């Protein structure tokens, strides 16, 4: 099941909320776990078993880890065991085809393998469960001895399918002790609606612009290439941040407080800052569990550079089982190193809008790597952006796309910056009914778009 879906919004959600709010306090967790299993099984009737397995596995391993806390050697052995199993599962579904294809290319043979459908959210819940084990090993948390609260952490539907990657430490208390009231419900509703509107009204339409320009496979014009990559840049932001907001909103409705996952990343004045604002939960996961254990930047410069490249190659690989994603990751690794050692002072001195422009250009080029799975179309696109191999400066395709998307772009740009929202927050205070009406209008418009489309699945869902 997906959040941006009529069945979820007007079927699953009202029934669930009704039960959850009417149920006695003690039954809430049971209800939540049960509903989450239904939610997941609805989309993946066979793979729900895998998700439950992962939850139970980490539950038991977490307890064992804590018992072995005085035996570092045993902890290490156990940790390796857990990581191997998790990577095995992830690898089996996500990377096995990629692995075989890559080996095949190296040796010039073609190894056939059946195509297995990817279980929804497997990258998210595997990383989430792993973070739990890692935190126990690093003695940051105690293992959860009761099964039910752990299942709540591991399977709850708001962040199950597409993040954010919630750390156990952040919600430990809330697992067994949280309150719900109409204010929180309202806060959650506001988050949910703004996420839904971002996804359905902005992201999906921007996706349409990008698709119209790139679907035909014909060469783009210079203008066309820039419009396309700009549309993609905005689309992926609203898509992913929208979904995260919906997840946070649903959490609030249940009484949970999740940390935000996106903090206006397109206002960044450096790539380093960008990665502190984009997909925060993933960035911090890699930082805390790979980068710092490898030594981070507290080692020799050479090792530091090595660490950066490892982390970024893995970050890229996490996003997709294909070399272009690895390239995307390494691209950012390189830029981050450049900024750290060379550009940093310079960036601080130039005016902020210029630094923002530099960052956005870097990010947009990054999205070219991200969006093109095969290297030849990637190359063509990059060339088109600087005017090589284009069908002209502008062609009818591009002009038509511009004309069709102008208003969309004019809405998208301020929507990606804090100013608009601050403005709207003022009206929340001054005229609460008007602001509520605006929200409901956004909800209604989103529903209209959802009814019209057969749904456009969220980009990150199969990660």
């Amino acid at each position, binding site marked *: 099941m997906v959040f941006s879906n009529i069945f979820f919004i007007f079927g699953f959600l009202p029934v669930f909320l009704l039960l959850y709010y009417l149920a006695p306090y003690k039954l809430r967790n049971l209800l939540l776990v049960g509903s989450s299993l239904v939610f997941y099984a609805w989309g993946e009737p066979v793979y729900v078993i895998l998700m439950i397995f992962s939850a139970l596995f980490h539950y038991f391993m977490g307890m064992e880890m804590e018992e*072995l806390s005085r035996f570092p050697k045993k902890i290490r052995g156990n940790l390796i065991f857990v990581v191997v*199993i998790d990577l095995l599962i992830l690898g089996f579904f996500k990377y096995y085809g990629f692995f075989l294809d890559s080996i095949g290319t190296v040796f010039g043979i073609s190894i056939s393998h*059946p195509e297995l459908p990817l279980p929804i959210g497997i990258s998210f819940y595997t990383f989430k469960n792993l973070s739990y084990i890692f935190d126990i090993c690093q003695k940051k948390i105690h293992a959860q001895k009761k099964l039910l609260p752990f299942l709540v952490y591991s399977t709850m539907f708001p962040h199950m399918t597409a993040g954010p990657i919630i750390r156990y430490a952040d919600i430990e208390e809330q697992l067994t002790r949280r309150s719900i009231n109409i204010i929180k419900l309202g806060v959650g509703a506001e988050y949910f609606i703004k996420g839904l509107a971002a996804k359905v009204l902005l992201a999906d339409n921007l996706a349409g612009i990008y698709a119209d320009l790139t679907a035909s496979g014909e060469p783009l014009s210079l203008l066309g290439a820039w419009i396309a990559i700009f549309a993609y840049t905005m689309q992926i932001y609203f898509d992913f941040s929208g979904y995260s907001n919906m997840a946070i909103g649903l959490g609030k409705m249940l009484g949970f407080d999740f940390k935000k996952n996106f903090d206006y990343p397109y206002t960044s004045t450096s790539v380093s800052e960008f990665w502190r604002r984009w997909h925060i939960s993933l960035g911090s996961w890699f930082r805390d569990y790979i980068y710092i254990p490898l030594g981070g930047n507290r080692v020799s410069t050479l090792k530091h550079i090595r660490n950066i490249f490892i982390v970024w190659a893995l970050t890229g690989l996490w996003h997709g089982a294909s070399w272009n994603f690895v390239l995307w990751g390494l691209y950012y690794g390189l830029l981050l190193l450049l900024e750290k050692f060379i550009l940093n002072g310079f960036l601080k001195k130039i005016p902020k809008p210029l630094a923002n422009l530099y960052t956005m250009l870097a990010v947009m080029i990054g999205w070219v790597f991200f969006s093109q799975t095969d290297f030849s179309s990637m190359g063509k696109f990059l060339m088109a952006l600087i005017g090589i191999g284009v069908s002209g400066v502008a062609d009818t395709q591009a002009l038509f796309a511009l004309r069709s998307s102008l208003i969309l772009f004019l809405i998208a740009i301020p929507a990606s910056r804090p100013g608009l929202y601050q403005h709207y927050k003022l009206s929340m205070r001054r005229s609460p009914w008007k602001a509520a009406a605006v929200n409901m209008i956004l909800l209604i418009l989103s529903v209209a778009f959802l009814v019209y489309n057969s749904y456009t699945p969220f980009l990150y869902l199969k990660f």
Partner: protein
Amino acid sequence: MAYLYGQNSGVITMGSKKYLFIKIGMVAFLAIYLFLIYTSDSAKDIPMEEITSSMESDETVTSLEKRGRTDLKRYYQLSEDSLEGYLFYKAVSPMSVEELLIIKAPDKQQTNIACDSARAHLDSQKQVFQGYGTDQMAFLNEAVVESKGNYVIYACGPNAQKWREKFLSLI
């Protein structure tokens, strides 16, 4: 289950034995689960020509009339160029429901479409014969519509099970 934090070796043995069992159990479960998933929908990549010649060696198949793409379109709304190959035999008489269709699709999406078409065809056949063809209804109720890997099979008639088993053994 009560346990004490590692005080002496006795506790370690007790604790780790329990977890050892759990680990072995879970790994075994995982292995079986993954194996089942892997094999359930996989099919060997056999070209349609091989399947055709193998199935055609059976007289019960060739006793029916071989059909072409027009009939494929007419009965299954499938166009031959959306497939990687097909084998279609149907009885000459419209009163008979004996029929064998095997198709190989290029991808999972087409496989699902073809499978839906085959099911729809079975439903419409049932509607046609409902009420007056008891023999035909019997065959239709036992008819096989299955997909495995990128193959779909529709088999109806006294030899449906035999055809199905032969086909599955090929892939």
